[in-house]
């Protein structure tokens, strides 16, 4: 169920690569120039395909839409592949065990801030949420910091940030990252202040537990690269269709559907649109790649930015399946507090954006 999350340990299998020179990362030397050559020829190839091969008119609505799609689709996928490969490689150095050990020594608001920031970079899969939660709490990471991490990790991640960056620009990407971290920080801090340790299920603190050591064995370059390639392939296989569908919808509807369609429901003037978007978004479960194309369409059709971002945060950050999983370690009171605090945080951020932008 929750194994749907990308970047997660629960995705499709991949075969072992060939031995020798290629095995030790030599293929990367050949692949990088090929990647750049392909990237540089994208624009002329897209124009040729749209205006010559398909015979569409330059400047016509359909012609420009097709040219946009056959250029932007491969471009975003190429960039996404490279970014995810780089991030996945770096992430082989960052283990949840190391994050846990960094947090175990901290207390107070700093622990929440650090946990929110580490949540961005640490590889995390919601299918590991329960053992991770117990591992954190049992070695002495404050409960509030544990929540800061659990809120930030799924909401602010490399794929979400990259897609926001390439589709909406750095301002919105940065805004999303900063407010996502802020929500994780404040929500975790509040949960910590409420002293809700007694609302954990008793077995969490009672069962025999042994803290695993961070990275029992050090990996070589080629093994890290293998893992990064594996992770990249898993993510791309999972998201390419969503990305292309989003760009296609964006390319075509943009010109053909009246932009004011959604303005009445999701525009700035409708005060109830932010809470409504969040209430619709919380039970939905999708990863960033699935939701960003939808956000793109919402924005194009006249939704306010705050409303659209709040919707995205609610979908990516909170989900029904994850809540069901966390119920194994959290009592209803703590679950309700967690959902309540984060939901209110997202609503506030939505209003703030609508007010400022």
């Amino acid at each position: 169920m929750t194994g749907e999350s990308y970047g997660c340990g629960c995705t499709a299998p991949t075969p072992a690569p060939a031995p020798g020179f290629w095995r030790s990362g030599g293929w990367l030397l050949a692949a990088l120039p090929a990647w750049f050559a392909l990237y540089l020829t994208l624009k002329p190839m897209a124009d040729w395909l749209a205006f010559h091969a398909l015979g569409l008119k330059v400047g016509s609505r359909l012609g420009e839409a097709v040219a946009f799609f056959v250029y932007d689709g491969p471009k975003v996928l190429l960039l996404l592949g490279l970014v995810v490969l780089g991030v996945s490689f770096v992430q082989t150095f960052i283990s949840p065990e190391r994050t846990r050990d960094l947090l175990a020594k901290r207390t107070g608001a700093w622990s929440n801030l650090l946990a929110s920031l580490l949540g961005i970079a640490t590889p995390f899969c919601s299918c590991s949420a329960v053992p991770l939660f117990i591992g954190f709490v049992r070695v002495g990471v404050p409960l509030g910091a544990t929540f800061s991490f659990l809120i930030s990790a799924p909401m602010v991640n490399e794929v979400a940030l990259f897609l926001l960056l390439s589709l909406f620009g750095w301002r919105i990407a940065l805004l999303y990252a900063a407010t996502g971290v802020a929500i994780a920080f404040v929500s975790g801090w509040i949960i910590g202040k409420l002293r809700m340790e007694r609302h954990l299920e008793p077995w969490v603190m009672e069962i025999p537990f042994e803290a695993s050591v961070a990275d029992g064995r050090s990996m070589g370059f080629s093994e890290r690269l293998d893992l990064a390639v594996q992770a990249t392939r898993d993510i791309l296989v999972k998201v390419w269709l969503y990305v292309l569908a989003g760009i296609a919808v964006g390319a075509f509807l943009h010109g053909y559907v009246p932009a004011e369609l959604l303005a009445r429901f999701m525009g700035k003037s409708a005060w109830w649109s932010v809470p409504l978007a969040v209430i619709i978004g919380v039970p939905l479960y999708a990863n960033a790649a699935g939701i960003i194309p939808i956000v793109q369409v919402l924005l194009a059709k006249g939704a306010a930015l705050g409303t659209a971002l709040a919707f995205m945060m609610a979908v990516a950050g909170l989900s029904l399946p994850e809540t069901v999983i966390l119920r194994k370690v959290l009592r209803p009171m703590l679950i309700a507090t967690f959902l309540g605090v984060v939901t209110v945080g997202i609503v506030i951020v939505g209003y703030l954006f609508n007010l400022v932008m």
Partner: protein
Amino acid sequence: MKIEVLGTGCAKCKLLAERAEEAAQALGLPYTLVKVTEYPDIVARGVMTTPGLVVDGVVKSQGHVPTAAAIQQLLR
């Protein structure tokens, strides 16, 4: 040799179990393979991220599926 594969049953856990079994057979080692699927049992072995590979009580890998070659080394 006792091989334990830790995980609640996702695709990568199954892949790890298959690879571990193949690796053990390739090495010609006698082994028993157990799938550990319950959270308390996973946590008791000190693993935070699944899938995890435990050999004779020692955590060998967690959070990812090592390559077939790497698993053979871990089993030795």
